[in-house]
């Protein structure tokens, strides 16, 4: 049984390492392409150069809870300590 298991394992690992045999792959560099931008015809609104255009939407708002002085305890304490 032990030998049977071992031989099964070896066989499986041997299959795993065998590369898939396909047709020969030929690698080629991309050929030079030329675009004439002036001749391109695009549909849509023309926006002034430099104008930021975004899709209008409501963003999730985070409230930072900015410090606003509600109490003056620290001032009171500081003055009291100044007399000690």
């Amino acid at each position, binding site marked *: 049984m032990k030998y049977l298991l071992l031989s099964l394992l070896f066989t499986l690992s041997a299959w795993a390492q065998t590369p898939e045999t396909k047709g020969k792959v030929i690698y080629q560099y991309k050929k030079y392409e030329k675009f004439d931008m002036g001749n391109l015809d695009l549909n849509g609104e023309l926006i002034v150069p430099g*104008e930021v255009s975004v899709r209008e939407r409501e963003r999730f708002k985070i409230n*930072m809870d900015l410090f606003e002085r509600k109490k003056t305890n620290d*001032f*009171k304490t500081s003055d009291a300590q100044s007399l000690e």
Partner: protein
Amino acid sequence: MRYLTLILLSLLSTEVFAKKMYEKLEGKRYYFSALNIFFKEVSVRNVTEDDVEVLDRLLQHTGIEVLDGYETEVLAKYPTGSTQFVLARRALKEKKFSRSLELIKQISKSHHFYPEAMFLKGQVYGEQKDINKEYQAYGECYNAAIKRVKQKGYVHYFKVLSEICLSDRARTKYDAGKLKDAVNEYSKIPKNSYKWPYLLLERAWAYYRLGDYNRALGLIVTYKSPLLDTYFFPEAEYLASLIYYKLCLFKDSSAIIQHYYKFYRPRYVQLEKVLRENKNSNTFFYNLMFRPEKQKAHGEFVKQIVVRLKKESRFNFGMTSILRVNHEMKLIKKNEKTTTQNLLMPHLKEVNKNMYQRLNGLVKVEIFNFLKTVSFFSSELYKIDLEILSKSKDLIYENKKFISDRSRGDLGNVKRSPSEYFWTFEKAFWADELGDYSFALKSNCQTIERTKAKK
């Protein structure tokens, strides 16, 4: 000589001579020495009414700081106004409010510490959240202090105390949310008072919470006056930036934030280095206070902080005590024989050392607290910066913009009560105008649609 000292010491232990001794010392104005001998002598017998009187008299010359090292049980033996005051203060710190009030009640109206005892009463009621009684106690403190303000040798003490009590009355109103009352109370503090520059910031907060942003900005700008160049508060910069943010004047708000980082960051590093390198020294900060050449070595900023600290009452009290001890030591050295010197000097040296260390510690703590404030408001300003960024993005995504890029002032925006003066700013600060400035800005928060350019 040794025998003579021994005889003198043995004589000191006998009641009659010891009493004569501290009375003699008091007569020669050796108050610190007299106090020491007094405690040594009275501790072994019952306290009489005369003892209580003597102790009170001595403490008026030495100050009550010297009692810091004495245990509560020891002090409780002497029912004087001074010791009752010290014990009431300790009880307050230990949160024993009823005990503190009980001790305060025992202090007579004519006693030197009565005004400060009323101040203490206000603090106790403050802790108990009894606003009406707190306000009333500060009023009693003010009235009692102002009556004594011409008392020789205590002019500064009673003046500062009266100003603090008046300030705390305003603060009580502020804390209770009665902001108009608070503003009225703050305005009762005269411009030539010691507390006035500090209270500009608090008044600015009161105006801010009342929604009068222009008046708040006007108060903050007062700190830019050359007369107040040693009064710089990170919180004032923060409040100005916050107000500009609330008025949607983001560029102005950002400019303050940038200035804050540019101004405080290098100075923070410098000050933090001074603190770190000398944190264990018992003399460095004291010397920094009183030796200008040391201040210069650490730059203008350290010097300005030190100048401001020196104006605080506790340093004045501390310095006065040190000068008195030094004076007593000089007199003893000059006038007394070696045996008496040997008897009195060790205690005086000890008192002197303790006082130096106390002042040194106070400066250290003040610098530490200042650094903490700089760092706290640095992070709060960072939050404003993020809010500005977020709001600016919101505008872009909503395809909107503020009504004006930069809103400028208009006299129509100035709110003014009949008691508030009005001058236009002519590119110069005038002493009598300080604290009466108001900006005239209009809120820029109204938004309009961005126009799209079409083909």
